[in-house]
């Protein structure tokens, strides 16, 4: 497999979404290629890290304002 093909297979492999013959060829390569093993691990960790981070909790003050403005709009629309 050429480099670009390997990278593409790597991404699909991380998703578990790859055609069996490509997967097999990629896994064979992976077995003998330490850098690629590390890259696969890096990509998995990158995704896990973004999923794990919860840096954007809904600001309470914004939530209050949002509900108040929606309530006002609702009254206009439905009259109750």
């Amino acid at each position, binding site marked *: *497999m*050429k*480099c*670009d093909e*390997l*990278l*593409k297979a790597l*991404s*699909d492999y*991380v998703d578990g*979404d790859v055609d069996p013959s490509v997967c097999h060829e990629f896994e*064979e*390569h992976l077995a*003998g*290629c*330490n*850098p*690629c093993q*590390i*890259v696969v*691990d*890096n*990509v998995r*960790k*990158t*995704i*896990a*890290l*973004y*999923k*794990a*981070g*919860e*840096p*954007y*909790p*809904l*600001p309470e003050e*914004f*939530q209050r304002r*949002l*509900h108040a*403005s*929606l*309530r006002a*709009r*609702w009254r206009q*629309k*439905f009259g*109750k």
Partner: protein
Amino acid sequence: MEGMESGTSPSDLELLRSAREGQWVAFEALVARFEPRVFRLTWRILQQRQDAEDATQQTFISVMEHLDQFREEAAVGTWIFRIATNQALAMLRKRRGRNTVRLDTQANQGDDETPMPHPEFIAQWRDDPAELAERREVKELLGQALSELDEKYRMVFVLRDVEEFSTKETAELLGITESNVKVRLLRARLRLRERLTRALGDESTRLAPDHGHETGNRVT
């Protein structure tokens, strides 16, 4: 509320139906269910708190205005996230318009022309994601790395990998093909991997990216 069994909470659809009939309490419950995720999604796309607040508000105003148009074959959540994504995109376009740079989320140019970024800094990370996620400087790094990505790659990464929409859903939300989604996702992942590994990788485990790939030799 209509359809509510005692002891179980109403489904999204039940809430929407009650809201359609003018029940504020049902609409507010629906907002409360989705506002954290809508805020998070728009924040990640727009990378600015004020814009995310505006986009979140616009999303729920739009939901309120279009309750009657909701077609019940779709899932309520998917509908709301599509509205949120469109709001965020509209805001990106407006922002870009001010800087007179064309927002190219639809076009595929650049995806196939510019070479795929090959991994250069290859090393084991020093710590696990779970530990890293707690640290403030890592959170800043994540935000920084994401904002450095081209918008069209950031959109796909946020929707696919962070918000866990499927390839098909992501393609629909962005109005691109599934194949576009995959190519852009790959580029996003590779760039983020590179950026993060440079900061978080253990130098002593660093390996050179050399193993006959460049020559295109078949590896048996």
